Structures are given as C-alpha cells and as structure tokens.
C-alpha cells in the first residue's frame, strides 16, 4: 500500500442558501487582479441551469476529463501528440463569450455629472479595455432560474429525463431549483495535470492540493480544456493558467480556506482522508456503474491499525493520521455513505463530495397545501418533483440506487428526529424508516450533530501543516536550509 493524505471536502446542499458569500470571499482574496476579473475559482450555480462557463458539463463540446478506451484511460481531449499539434490553436478552449465579458461601472459619472433634472447614471465599462460596453451576460446570469427558457432548459443533465418530465418541471407551480457551489475538486486523477504539456500543474504529495506552477506554465491552455469542471482559468494578462489553490497559505497557518470559513449556511466540511495511491488508475478505469463505490473503497479507515501502520511507513505524519480520524469527510463519505462526487463519470476521482439536496425532491404538496412526512416517506421518492434521475445524472453517473440510498438516509434522520422532538410520528414508523435507510440511532445522532450543531473546528478539521513551526520546533533548523520556500523573488510581470 502506498498511502497518501488528501485534503477533501463535503458540501451539504440542503444547507446552501445561495448567498454567494463564498465566491466573494475567494474573489476578494485571490482573483482581484487584471486578467483574473472573470475567474470564479468558487462559484455557486443554480440547478437546473447551464453552469459556468456556459454548458461546461457538455463534454461533447468541450472534451474534458477521461474516457475508457479498450479498458484503458485516455484523455478525452486526445492523445499527447494531438495536443502538441494543437498548441497554436486549441479548438476546445472556451472564450470569454462562454464566460462573460468582465465589467465595472464608471462611478465618477455619478460625481462629475453636471447639475440637471435627471438622475446621473454610472455607465458600464469593460474591465479589459476600459471602454463603454453593453452588458450581455454576467456570472450567475441565471441565478434562481432567471432566464430559464434559455439557461435551465438547456441543462445537459435534463437529457436524463423524459419529454413529459421536462415539461412538467417548467410548469409554473412545479418549478424547483437548488444551488450547487462548485470549486476545484483537487481530484486524485486530475485531467488538468495530465493535459498540461509543460508539466506545470502538479499535485502536492502531502495534501493533494492541485497547483499551477506560475513559473513553469507557458500558456499552452490545455489544462483549461482538460478539466471537465472548467476549474482552471486562463489569465489573459499574465498569459498563465490559474486555479483554486484551496487557500493553502491559509491552511499552512492553521486556518480554513476563505470560502469555507465565510460560508453562511455552514454547508462546508473539510478534513484529510487517507487513500491508497496505488489504486488510482485501477479505480478510475472501473465501469461507470461502479465508480462511486470504487472511489469510496479507495478511502481508507484511519482507525484501522493496519492502515495506520502502512500510513506511517508511507511517510505520513502521525499528526496527520490523527487529523484524519477527526475528519468529517470520512464520516459523511465512507461511514454514512451520504456524500457523492459530482459527475464521477468524468473519471478524475474528484475529492469534493456533495450531499444531494432533499427539498427539491420531496416538496410535493397535497390537497391541503402541505406535505405529510409520515405518509410521504415511503412514496415521496417515486413522486419526486425533480426526478431522482436528474440527481443521479449529477452525482452518481446515472446510478439511481446510489442516490436513493442517500435520500433514504436523509429522510430517515428527519423522521427519527421528528418522532423524537415533535412526537407526531410514531417511533415504530421512525424505526421502520431507519431500517430502510440502514441507519442505527447512533448514526442518526452523529449525522444530526454534524449537520446541525457542529462548530467550526468540527466542520473544518484543518490538518496540522504549520510548516514554519514544524521546522522550528520539531526538526533541526539546518535540515532544510537550502529550500527557498514559496513565492516570487521578483514582481511577477507579464513577459514581453
């Protein structure tokens, strides 16, 4: 076994209120520079919707991720040779039109306007050229289903539904949506890394964070096409690719990433998991229906003495193992099997997991205009407002059983807690719900606690990187004297 540790995440979608605080925290910290205006390392999409950049999920158009060919993994983008041939012009690169033209307003118009009868208006200007422009699109143009005949109607995942189901979804009283916050998944089998011809993108051995070396990147733009999630962006000003760095400078100081720290709905969980790096390729080449389960299998039990011994001999620090034991990710993903990866069929083994939202599925009204949990429980999934197949297309490569199993747990926890606290459901019914969901009362308490009550340091278990302290306290200071550390020795300026 070749055990590595990976900083991993869970987003609990029922709790996301779509406030975009996470996106702004990230923008203010990292992408507030010329060339990065249009980048949203973290963004929150309304689903159903076309996402950002538009239709990024349509891999027939973008050719991102991996495909299986004769049982072998291959970049959907094409062979290495074909990428070298396409360096001068990358046919699969999205342009600003697929994102949006970044804009701001000329606020001085408000102050400088001459005295008059009209209210002055700040004109929109381009953040690229500085000239007047007409705004045609922006990030989250389809927020809360706005413009749904254009956006939501074209969601690639709706292909999984029948004509009738799609029509029903767009009927006024049936409309339903939820939020999907997205960021780099820091995948175990990242196709952005594999697509980079100059070898500038790499995965950090210690924590699995995927980074772009700004010095090695030569602007060949293959990573942008290679990532099926479109989470590598091209900085038009510096001529380099940039992506989410999982706030590693913050984590090395013991703080959670800014998006997680600022999350208003407290939907975000973070922690390390241990996995077997020897199994990456084999796991990523499983048949589509086994991918979710195979990825779960790869994640190892940090309490198992055998795993601990192997982890230590693979060079993982005991403190990291301890941190993995406290990880909420292990509980949600492996122990309770409630969190699923987004689009596992792209075979990058994404390490950001989602607990699918319950509300859009169950909230069907009865004649009186309210819904009854007890009677709903055993039938609601079949009569769901947003068909389970839609969720399966997002979170389990189309395997409905996988998603239904999660929903049974979410419902089981609710019914059990309701029987306990409100008391309008009998304990037998609650027990029946738990049996169907394969949960014990202890599980329910654990899930309830982590979902509803846990504090920040239980939701976000930042592993003890503290590199400076490790050098000073634990190890001879001379040992790493030759190392330069991170960062530039000069101001990073666009080349001529």
């Amino acid at each position, binding site marked *: 076994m070749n055990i590595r540790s990976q900083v991993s995440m869970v987003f609990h979608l029922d709790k996301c209120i779509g406030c975009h605080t996470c996106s702004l925290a990230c923008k203010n910290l990292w992408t507030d520079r010329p060339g990065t205006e249009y980048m949203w390392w973290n963004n929150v999409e309304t689903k159903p919707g076309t996402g950002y950049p538009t239709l990024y999920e349509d891999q027939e158009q973008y050719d991102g991720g991996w495909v299986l060919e004769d049982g072998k993994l291959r970049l959907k983008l094409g062979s290495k040779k074909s990428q070298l041939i396409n360096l001068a012009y990358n046919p699969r690169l999205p342009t600003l039109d697929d994102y949006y033209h970044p804009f701001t307003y000329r606020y001085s118009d408000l102050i400088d306007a001459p005295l008059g009868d009209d209210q002055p208006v700040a004109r929109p200007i381009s953040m690229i050229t500085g000239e007047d422009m007409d705004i045609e699109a922006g990030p989250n143009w389809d927020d809360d289903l706005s413009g749904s005949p254009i956006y939501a109607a074209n969601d690639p995942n709706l292909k999984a539904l029948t004509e009738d189901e799609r029509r029903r979804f767009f009927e006024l009283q049936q409309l339903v949506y939820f939020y999907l916050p997205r960021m780099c998944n820091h995948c175990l089998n990242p196709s952005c890394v594999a697509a980079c011809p*100059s070898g500038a993108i790499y995965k950090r*051995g210690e924590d699995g964070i995927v980074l772009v070396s700004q010095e090695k990147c030569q602007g060949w733009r293959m990573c942008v096409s290679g990532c099926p999630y479109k989470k590598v962006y091209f900085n038009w000003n510096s001529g380099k690719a940039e992506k989410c760095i999982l706030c590693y400078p913050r984590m090395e100081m013991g703080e959670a990433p800014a998006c997680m720290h600022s999350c208003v709905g407290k939907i975000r969980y973070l922690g390390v998991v241990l996995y077997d790096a020897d199994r990456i390729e084999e796991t990523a080449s499983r048949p589509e229906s086994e991918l979710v389960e195979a990825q779960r299998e790869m994640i190892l039990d940090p309490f198992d003495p055998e795993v601990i011994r192997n982890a230590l001999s693979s060079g993982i620090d005991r403190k990291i193992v301890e941190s993995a034991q406290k990880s909420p990710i292990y509980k949600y993903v492996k122990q309770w099997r409630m969190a699923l990866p987004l689009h596992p069929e792209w075979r990058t083994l994404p390490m950001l997991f989602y607990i699918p939202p319950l509300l859009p599925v169950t909230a069907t009204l009865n004649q009186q205009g309210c819904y009854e949990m007890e009677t709903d429980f055993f039938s609601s999934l079949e009569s769901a407002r947003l068909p389970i197949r839609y969720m399966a297309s997002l979170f389990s490569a189309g395997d409905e059983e996988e998603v239904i199993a999660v929903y049974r747990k979410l419902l089981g926890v609710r019914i059990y807690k309701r029987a306990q606290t409100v008391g309008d459901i009998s304990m037998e019914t609650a027990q029946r719900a738990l049996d169907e969901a394969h949960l014990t009362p202890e599980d329910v308490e654990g899930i309830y606690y982590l979902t509803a009550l846990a504090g920040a340091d239980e939701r976000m278990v930042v592993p003890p990187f503290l590199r400076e302290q490790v050098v000073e306290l634990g190890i001879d200071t001379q040992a790493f004297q030759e190392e330069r550390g991170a960062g530039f020795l000069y101001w990073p300026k666009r080349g001529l």
Partner: protein
Amino acid sequence: MDTLFFIAFPYVALILAIGVGIYRYFRHPYTYSSLSSEILEKRKLFWGSVPFHYGITVILLTHLLAALFPSAASWLLRGQIRRLVLELTGMALGLYALFGLIVLIIRRLAPKSLVQATTSYMDGIVLFVLLVQLGSGVGVAIFNRWGGLWYLDTAVPWFWSLASLHPDMSTVAALPALPKLHFLTGFVVILLFPFSRLVHLVMFPIQYLWRPYQVVIWNRRPAGTSPYSKEVSR
C-alpha cells in the same frame, strides 16, 4: 557597410540571443510564456495562428536542415522535377505562412478588438519584422528563382564561416538587395528573440510525450528518499 551587416551584426544578434535567452530563462522564468490571447478572440486566431505556425515551422526547419546538411540537400535537389516540386512547395508554404501572419496582424489592429488590451510595443515590432522577413522570403522565392540551389552555395558557406569563427561574407556580398534584406531581417528576428514573446519557440514541450500523465511534487521528504519512491522509512 556589408561587414557591419553581415559579420558584426550576426555575431551581436547570436550572442545576445543565447546570453540574454539563458539569463531570462533562469532569472525570469515567469516571463517565458506563449502569451496566448485565444481566450479573448478565437475565430481570427484560427485563420491566423494555424497557417502561420505550421507554415513557418516547416520553412524554418527546411532552412535549418539544409544549412546543417548541405550535401544531403543538394542530393535532394538533383533533377529538374524534384527541384520544381520543392520550389513550388516552398513558395506555397511561404504564402500560407504569410497569409496567417497578415490575419494575425489584422487581428491585433482591428478596431475594438479585445486583443489590443494585451498588445505590447514589442508585439508590434515583432509582427512588423516578421512581416518584412516573410514578405522578403516570398519575394526571393518569386524573383530570385531556384533559391533552394543558390542558398547552398551562398548563405550556407557564410553561415559555416560565421560558425567556425572565420567570418567570410564573400559568397553573399554580391547577391541582389532582396536576398540581402532577407538575411539581415533574419538576424533581426534572432536579435529580438530573447527580448520578445518569441522565446516561446524554444519552449516547445516535447518532453510531454514521455512524461507520465500525473505529476506529484512533495514539499519536503526526509533526506535520501526520492519523490516517487514507494517505501519511505522514518
């Protein structure tokens, strides 16, 4: 005058190209980039970048290989038909690249083009010099026929004399003005190389072909363990 242009200048250009190129690579690796603007504009880029890059790559390689292996080149050019085919291919490739370059220039100059936001003065100079170089090259192909042949007896001996540090420009001194202009701008391009985006030429990532797909880098591993080793003892 000729001595200045055909002996002193080539040396200056070459020394700067190599010296500054290496200095820039080690001191300012961040500035080595193709500086792509594809994300801002894609349609014209297709019609410009593809013909220009493919055309110029083949032409440049032919120039280089013929200069390195003149005897092989003269063997290839034996026979009227072969000569004709090669001459016409060269001309077509030259026109192909020239067409691409003109599209690229239009793309940069087009009013309201987003690409202007990333255009530096150096880009303008590079495009202009390349235009002169490619234009004069196509001109030579049209007006001074059978360049494939006389190239081997004029420019190539001159290159070799420069390379062997016994500069001798007698073979090129008597040529007409157009080929001379072509030679001169050729060295201007070399001079511009380390000071412009042309540096991306030497960065062609051929090593990608034999690199494993995944790249893992460790911040820190105990001494004596290689980054990829599986057995790490503590």
